[in-house]
């Protein structure tokens, strides 16, 4: 993975596979505490305790097409490389919370990349799932919530080809103001 947005795109697939109807992606940058925290919360089927204990093992996957599952291990490796950590909490039937903490100032922290593009891909490819993306830099915050967008569009589908670039533009221009580090 070249940047953090691709990790988010990858991890969100797990939530989609878990049949979540709401996926929340939160990025919190705190330059005082020097942390860069990415939290992905879903209301999917959850992970049983015995599986949860080994999901960070690259030779663990729920897939049948292949024997390795690298999404979480690669993300964990990147977080740990900066001196941070990755934790997972899950309850069967309720959902899963994945938290990756990076050290903000560490040179090994990958760049965020095209997060607006990633959010738009997730939204347009999964029209039945709601997404909330929030990004905060110290006290400034931007929230993109597909439930609000759906209301504003009033029946016009979110995956409509002419809507997609508008959503991307909306997210990107708001993030520009946050001055992401």
């Amino acid at each position, binding site marked *: *993975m070249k940047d953090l947005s*691709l990790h988010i795109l990858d991890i969100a697939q797990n939530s989609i596979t878990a049949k979540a109807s709401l996926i929340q992606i939160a990025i919190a940058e705190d330059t005082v505490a020097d942390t860069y925290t990415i939290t992905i919360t879903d209301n999917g089927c959850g992970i049983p305790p015995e599986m949860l204990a080994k999901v960070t093992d690259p030779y663990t996957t729920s*897939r049948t097409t*292949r024997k390795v599952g690298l999404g979480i291990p690669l993300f964990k490796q990147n977080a740990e490389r900066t001196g941070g950590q990755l934790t997972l909490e899950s309850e069967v039937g309720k959902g899963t919370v994945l938290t990756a903490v990076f050290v903000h100032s560490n040179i090994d922290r990958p760049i965020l990349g095209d997060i607006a593009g990633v959010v738009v*891909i997730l939204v347009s490819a999964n029209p039945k799932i709601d997404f909330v993306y929030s990004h905060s830099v110290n006290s400034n915050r931007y929230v993109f919530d597909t439930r609000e967008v759906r209301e*504003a*569009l009033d029946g*016009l589908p979110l*995956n409509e080809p002419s809507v997609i670039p*508008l959503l991307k533009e909306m997210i990107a221009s708001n993030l520009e103001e946050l001055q992401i580090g």
Partner: protein
Amino acid sequence: MAKVKSLADLKKMKEQLQSKVDLREKGEDPESRVQIKVAMATCGIASGAKTVMDYFLEELDKRSIDAVITQTGCMGYCYAEPTIEVKLPGQEPVVIGYVDVKKADEIIEKYIKNGELVDGIIPMNYNTIDNQ
């Protein structure tokens, strides 16, 4: 086009868009749309599936091809990522591997527009005459 920044801006754009959507919905039924699935598991994303998906989202709209573009998981062809599955209306889906932006352009121009097969097809749903 004015810059869209808030939900209110989006609302304003909506009326303009609605007419375009109505026009299309009246003209065609959803089954007649081209369906593209981009494999987006860890292997796909790491090899550039996002760039490919961005390209399809942008170019198909630009070239006025009515298509539904979605994501799918890993199909087990990690060695050939990024892979995509293209289903033309009324035809069997075709899986194509090693898709980059250049290949994607070729797929749009040759396969989607003219039905010509391109290199890199993975015989996933390959049928011999015997089992047909």
